[in-house]
């Protein structure tokens, strides 16, 4: 089992690089062969990645979220799965490049530095913690996907506004589809982050009195509220297009700031992750 795990650990970055390459060729050249092999490549890579994480879980007896490198491989898979879902839903191959490149980067970093041992802090063995971390990873992945589609929206918006009918115009899905993708991903992120905050609060209240003063907790709450506001304005006030996309991007900048702050600048009990 160790040998299989090690093999998959080496293979996955290669598979993601090849998949991303196929989608890149398809985006720039609309190559018929690339179009034909893109999805089978992605499905195969995702399948092997699921196997890899399942093996890790069985072998090390914890879900693969205990270290930053385990989180990275889970994020890589989440992004790929989210993209696969979007591709099946929208029948458009053309945004694969922009997401799968992140899966490749995350998986490569994870494969390079991940520790193949069962070391796992006892404090993190709670099922509540497992739900907390898993939903956090899924939530942040969804926000990242929302931000990527938001950026693609802005690119296409700019080209459409200035009558530039180049590669972006020809390849990207329609503007309202990109906006919808960004919004739906943000909604998924809000749901997962609500679970993250709820489980985290219950779990932390038993171990860290005054957890609600923790900077990471506060920042996460703010992020959640920003996204809620954006979604609320879409459904309540009819906000569409650039305004909601900018709000989503602002939320994602806050996420990056929050992660950096919790890790490097502010004292937080989230330091173990």
């Amino acid at each position, binding site marked *: 089992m160790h040998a299989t795990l090690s093999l998959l650990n080496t293979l996955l970055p290669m598979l993601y690089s090849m998949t991303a390459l196929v989608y890149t060729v398809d985006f720039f050249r609309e190559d018929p062969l690339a179009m034909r092999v893109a999805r089978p490549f992605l499905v195969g890579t995702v399948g092997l990645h699921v196997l890899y994480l399942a093996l890790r879980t069985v072998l090390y007896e914890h879900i693969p979220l205990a270290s930053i490198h385990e989180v990275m491989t889970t994020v890589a898979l989440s992004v790929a799965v989210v993209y696969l879902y979007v591709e099946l839903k929208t029948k458009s191959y053309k945004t694969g490049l922009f997401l799968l490149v992140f899966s490749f980067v995350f998986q490569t970093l994870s494969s390079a530095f991940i520790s193949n041992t069962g070391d796992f802090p006892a404090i993190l063995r709670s099922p509540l913690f497992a739900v907390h971390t898993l939903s956090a990873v899924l939530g942040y992945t969804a926000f990242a996907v929302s931000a990527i589609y938001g950026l693609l929206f802005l690119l296409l918006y700019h080209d459409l506004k200035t009558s530039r009918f180049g590669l972006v115009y020809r390849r990207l899905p329609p503007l309202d589809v990109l906006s919808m993708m960004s919004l739906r991903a943000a909604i998924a992120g809000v749901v997962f982050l609500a679970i993250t905050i709820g489980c985290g609060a219950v779990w932390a209240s038993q171990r860290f009195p005054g957890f609600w003063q923790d900077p990471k907790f506060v920042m996460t709450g703010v992020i959640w509220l920003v996204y809620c506001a954006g979604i609320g304005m879409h459904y309540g006030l*009819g906000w569409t*297009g650039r305004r909601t996309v900018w709000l989503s991007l602002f939320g994602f900048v806050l996420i990056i700031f929050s992660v950096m702050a919790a890790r490097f600048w502010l004292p937080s009990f989230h330091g173990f992750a």
Partner: protein
Amino acid sequence: MNGELLVVGCSHRTAPLALRESLAFGPDQLLQTLRLASRERVLAETLILSTCHRTEFYSLSTDGARAEVYVREMIARVKGSDLLGPGPCTYAYRDRDTVRHLMRVAAGLDSAVVGEAQILGQVKDAYNMAREGGSAGAFLDRLLAAAIHAGKRAHSETEIGSGSVSFTSATVSLTKKIFRDLSGKRVLIVGAGAFGRLAAEHFAEERPAALLIANRTRERAEALAAHVGGEAFGLDEVPALLRRADVVVSAVHTDRPVVRADSVREALRDRSGRTMVFADLGVPRNIDPAVSRLDNVFLYTLESLQTIVDQNLARRRREVPRVEAIVEEELERFFQSVRALQVTPVVRELRDRFESIRALETEKHLKRFAASDRAAVEALTRSIVNKLLHLPTTKIREIDLASEKGVLRLDAVREVFGMNGDAMPSGGTDPLTSAAGSAGNADAFVAAEASAGVDGSAGADGDGNR
């Protein structure tokens, strides 16, 4: 007697619009001319392709030179003047070049707008007309099927027909880059002239939630609205209609903008800033250029639409070599199928020859046998002949007439078995079977088709004329 396939005609490439207009055939005139050609029996088969960009006469006859003169005379009779006389405005192709030309036409390679798909339907219509007029036979059946197949392949396997190449269709495709689905959108067309009508028709195909037609003359707006299933309004109602419209296409003659920026700003306020698309197809401009500065508003002019049209045309032109390759492939396949048909009469003649020898010899010697044995003798001799012919028949069917060797082999078969019948032309000289070029032998083709049991023109006489 050898025959030839011929096309005589003119198109947008060779003739000015005035000549093309004079040469154009309406449905009734087309049918009359085809019936005339069918009655006069100079041509074995005839087809007339008449569109706004071309008028072409396709014919299969036993004498190409005579057919060319006849076609020109017929035009002179029908149109009152020798409009298709020899000169720079007309062209004539023979045999293989004719087939290639028809396939190129069907594939959209010879169209004014390269790759346009309408021509494929027009080729089919021309063929149906020829059938109705009684001038299409087995050869045209096969030729048209091959040309239409080539056209379909060109459109399905390449991007020769992709992208919008008119301003109004480019407006629709551009709008669909902003709204994926127009079925929930309201489209306002300002102007019921030629551009407005085309835009309304194009958008109607997308089945929008509402199609609003505004025009200075309300009656014209009502007529267009009735045509496309929309609602009619006056031009003064445009500012109010902006609140309802997601897409606005304007094509009217006006000195002042019909759509002002402040009207759009007000409309946006009422629409909670929801996205709006404007296409200004008018000269001078119908829509205030300041509209383009508003958030979530996209304004396109003739200039920007021209960019899309040019890009799509360039993309289509890049596909031309691939389509030319398809045409050559289908051309070769067509001639192969014709050649294959032409082997069938040889087999039949061989069998007939052996059967007649067998029957003659059996008849001669049958009286030596007892009456009770005669049926057995008949069966025995038939069986021997069948067995003797089995291998030669199989080998003849395998002959590839596309190659010189194949043609020589068939000639050798004829010589060995003493067959010089009229049903088969000499492979080396028959334009239809010659790999080096040219096309048709009306007699041979019709005989081959009849022999192979192909449904088609049963009306060819010995000269290949109908």
